[in-house]
């Protein structure tokens, strides 16, 4: 006779049934794939004509090659990481700033929000390339294109070098100036990369209870103090979310990914490509852990 299951056991089984499709997929496509990628990175992989592939174990050879001999890997990796580390704080501050600006009531707020979110919708790489091409059209056709090439700036609709000269006379430390210049010339990519972040910050700002602002006002806090004592601590948890999102997003479109893809499907060096993928993923995870750990200690959780 069949033994009757208790209600909680039944629910347990049903729970597993609900997540079953994903569980199979996760084991088959993710866990297995990560293990295989690791295995590939220690082997020389040759694809056979009949189908299938053979693996020759070569030990650390691929890693040694990637770090000792490969022409561009180290540069591309470091520049990708550097770009990421440079961009993340800029994007976070920019999107927080924009969220605060957009949080006040004004006409056409929905429209502006929609425009800010537009880059998220148009994130296809093919469209992005075409969009970049068309930036010069705005500035007045092909004749304007040549004059802009000489300024060597990313955002071609603004003459950045004039402003750089202007700042140069302020006698700022060179490093600070370099950072500002880099930030300004990246304004385009920062704006397009911060759509989701702005929306997240906006939602966070709206979830702050208005009684807190009332208290601050009654106690006589200035706008500046209110920002640092009320607004900032309350959006802090969302800063972590946004940092994670930004790092992943930036990494997915970095040059390392392109390099790994090309090594695999243009040069057919699968082992080396696996090394690139694994190393860059590991580095990103390390950055994520460090950043989240660093922020979490300083985060205030309201609930």
């Amino acid at each position, binding site marked *: 006779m069949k033994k009757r299951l208790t209600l909680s056991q039944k629910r347990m089984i049903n729970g597993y049934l609900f997540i079953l499709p*994903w569980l199979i997929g996760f084991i088959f496509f993710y866990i297995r794939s990560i293990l295989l990628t690791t295995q590939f990175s220690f082997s020389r992989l040759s694809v056979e004509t009949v*189908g299938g592939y053979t693996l020759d174990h070569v030990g650390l050879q691929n890693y040694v090659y990637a770090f000792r001999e490969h022409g561009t890997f180290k540069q591309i990796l470091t520049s990708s990481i550097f770009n990421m580390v440079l961009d993340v704080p800029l994007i976070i501050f920019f999107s927080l700033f924009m969220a605060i600006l957009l949080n006040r009531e004004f006409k056409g707020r*929905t429209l502006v929000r929609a425009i800010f979110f537009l880059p998220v919708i148009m994130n*296809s790489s*093919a469209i992005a390339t075409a*969009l970049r091409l*068309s930036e010069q059209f705005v500035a007045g056709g092909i004749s304007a294109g040549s004059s802009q090439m000489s300024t060597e700036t990313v955002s071609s609709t603004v003459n950045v070098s004039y402003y750089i000269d202007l700042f140069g006379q302020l006698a700022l430390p060179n490093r600070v100036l370099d950072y500002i210049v880099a930030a300004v010339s990246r304004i385009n990519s920062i704006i397009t990369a911060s759509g989701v972040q702005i929306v997240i910050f906006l939602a966070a700002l709206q979830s702050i209870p208005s009684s807190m602002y009332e208290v601050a006002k009654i106690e006589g806090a200035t706008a500046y103090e209110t920002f640092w004592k009320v607004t900032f601590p309350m959006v802090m948890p969302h800063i972590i979310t946004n940092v994670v999102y930004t790092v992943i997003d930036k990494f*997915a479109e970095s040059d390392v990914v392109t390099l790994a893809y090309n090594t695999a499907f243009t040069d057919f060096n699968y082992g080396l490509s696996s090394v690139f993928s694994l190393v860059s993923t590991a580095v990103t995870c390390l950055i994520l852990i460090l950043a989240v750990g660093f922020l979490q200690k300083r985060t205030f959780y309201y609930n």
Partner: protein
Amino acid sequence: MDTGKSVGIKNRIRTITENPKIVNSTRGMKADFKKLLIKVFSFVVIVGICYVILSPIIGMIVSSFMSDSDRYNPMVYMIPTSPTLEKYKISWARMNYLPTMGRNLLYSITLMLIQIFICSMVGYGFARFRFPLRRLLFACVVVMIVIPDHTIMLPLYMTFKNFDPLGLVSLFAGKPLVLMGTPIPMYIMTIFGCGVRSGLYIYIFNQFFRNLPKEIEEAALVDGAGIWYTYFRIMLVNAIPAVVTVAVFSMVWQYNDTFYAKLFLISENIVISKKITTLQSVIANVDKILDTSIQELYLSAGVVLIMLPIIIIYVALQKYFIEGVERSGIVG
């Protein structure tokens, strides 16, 4: 001395408070001016940034209407002097627009429906059932969001090149299937909850179901509905906002996806965004237009054509995109 001073101040305070006009005019003007300044400042910043976002799109639309002579005329700014639809005509024909777009929409919409079905189910499972390893498995969903696709691309490529799960296919058909060049790998991955950004959708659904009151299900249970009936007829209907959010995101991201389309070598007759990468060379070879800057005009006409469905969806359902991000678990 001291008392005299304080009396003087008191007198001044009295005159100010008794005379509301003075208070309003001096302090009020300052505050008004400050407010106006902030308003102007934020207006300028917002308009400027909107311009940075919109200018490439405007530029593309403008240039897609330009004629060849406009392209070389330095006087032409924003408004072409002799607008033409010729660029659209040729791009339309070279991309085989309507059939390709139809196939692409069919592909994206079917995948979207599968995504909604599978991800809502998994999200519901995580939200409402207690089972061993639940927290660990849910952490795996987060891992899935975090891990970049290219880490697993090679094994996926190898797997679908010779599709032979557990040796079953070769047992029945004699040899492993070659699924490259077809959209089948994408369907298989989506069915098993690992499609384009499935982890995110599972997360969104999980968060949404967790916030629904438990009483709904309890009532259904008391009325004698089974768990699956409850899920399909009651919970999924209640989750319409989350469903719409996932639908629009999955639709648009699937449409935009070139990574998996490239990895699985899905034919460009199904994925129209792949066509745009070859459009320029097709125009050069077929129409013998060898001037690259003229080719770019055709390219921008093609991009406008490709963006059209997304723009229409976005304008129509703009609310759901933004609310989706707000409401989705990313926030709370």
